[in-house]
């Protein structure tokens, strides 16, 4: 078990060491120029981080979610015969909750692009 602790110790100390080194070794003289995002020496024209439509995120997110959820169908299908009615009820409850989530997402307008 000592190894586990050593792992914690080494990486913890390493993390601390790196952070502290940064703090102590790095000269921290800040000037307005230094604080501004670096744009190859020329003044920047717009914010460093460009906003892009969050819709991408949402769709990707929902895809991931529903895709992963369906994975649970496979083990269910394997033991379906052994469990019988219980399995059916459980899976219907599961799908019911999923459908609720779907309705929620739909009504929230996730699928409308504009």
């Amino acid at each position: 078990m000592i190894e586990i602790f050593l792992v914690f110790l080494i990486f913890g100390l390493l993390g601390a060491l790196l952070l502290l080194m940064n703090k102590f070794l790095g000269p921290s003289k800040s000037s307005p120029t230094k604080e501004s995002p670096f744009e190859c020496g020329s003044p920047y024209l717009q914010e460093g981080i460009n906003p892009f439509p969050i819709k991408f995120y949402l769709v990707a997110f929902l895809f991931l979610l529903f895709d992963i959820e369906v994975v649970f169908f496979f083990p269910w299908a394997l033991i379906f015969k052994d469990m019988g009615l219980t399995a059916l009820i459980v899976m219907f409850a599961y799908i019911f909750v999923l459908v609720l989530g779907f309705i929620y997402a739909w009504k929230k307008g996730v699928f409308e692009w504009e």
Partner: protein
Amino acid sequence: MNSLFALLPLVIIVIASLLVLLLEVFLKKENKNYLGFISLFFLIVCAILYFRFWNEEFSYFKGSLVLDKLSLFFFFIFAVAVSFVILLSMKYISLQDANHGEFYALLLFALSGMMIMVSSSSLVIIFLGLEVLSISSYALAGLKRKDKKSSEAAIKYFLLGSFASGFFVYGLALLYGASHSTDISGILDYFRSSPELSLMATIGLGLVIIGFGFKIAVVPFHMWTPDVYEGAPTPITAFFSIGPKAVGFAVLLRIFLYYWRITPESQAIFWLLWIISVLTMLVGNLIALRQTNLKRILAYSSIAHAGYLMVAILARDGSSLLFYLAAYLFMNLGAFAAVIALSKKGKEYLELDDYAGVGFKYPWIGATFTIFLLSLAGFPPTAGFLAKFYVFSAAVREGLVPLVIIGVLASLISVFYYLRIVVYMYMREPSREIAIHLENPALFLVIFLCLYGVLQLGIFPGNILLIIREAINALPF
């Protein structure tokens, strides 16, 4: 008794949250307050169910979900806490631009997570509940979407929370590796049967404690608390200060009430918790001295209270722990209610300077807030006094005198910052004009109920103590 009834309260809450979530998208914005009432209705149904179930013990899923008296007691505390938070929020979320219907759904999800945690005896199921609670909490913390601090709180809570969950699962894995069981009783049986404590199991237990140490905010796992408490919408802060804390202590209680009996007292875990408790009481109270933001003061105060609660765990006294939690529920929610009362559209008054002269301008809020603060500081005849008294006297009975001395000193320090608020309210000339939105009957109902609770528990604790004793005695060991 193996019965589906064991699932009933949980199912009701889950159905309620799904219903609220669905209705949210169908209701118009101005009708969203109904969602609060619907949630309240379901909570009341559940509370009635708890009373019905009090003298019966149901379990399901091969005993991994047990509805014993202890879990019913905690269910009840959670139901009260969540209903108070809902009542506090009704006006608040529309005034502070957080009026999303998901608010109530998320609260109910969090509640279901907490219910899973207290009623389960398997650490894996407890982890499931913990995640349900945590994920809803992260979302709740960031509910004021346009407020930068709120988003900051959410992301901080999320990152550090995942970090802590990792430790918890790691500990769980080690425990399972050592004892071949994920059941609390199975794990404890292993501890009892193996004459030499295996290092793997001890470290596993230690990591599990760390996981919970994060939720109940004990030093040194407390760093997230002030920032998250400050950024989250205030009713949610109130919820964080009681809900996750109570649930964490419930699980610790289930583990340690038995664990202490099978291990010698000089055990390393014991002294670790001892040190944590001392650190928590001291650090929480000391940093609170320098705060000027009400929510941060209450955040540090909640850290300090976790330290007192830890004393109860160390003193092996379940009933004083439960009493403390019940008292803390009322006094802390009451204090937060008073803070919430001092707000108007788009603006909350949270700085100490805002509170100058409030005692005379709003005598009701001032007086009740004073009582809650006195209770938090532990003055008789309030609930806070008796709660501390029971905890510390249990600790003295167990011979933990140094711990009690430190605890009393720490609570002496705490008197300073609690009374400072009172001093501001009554003895300072107001330096700036504040105007608040007073038409909020739900909030005043909460203040009144909390006041009642604080006084009832402080002056006539008898009946509650009997119930608590029953809940503790019904535990299997």
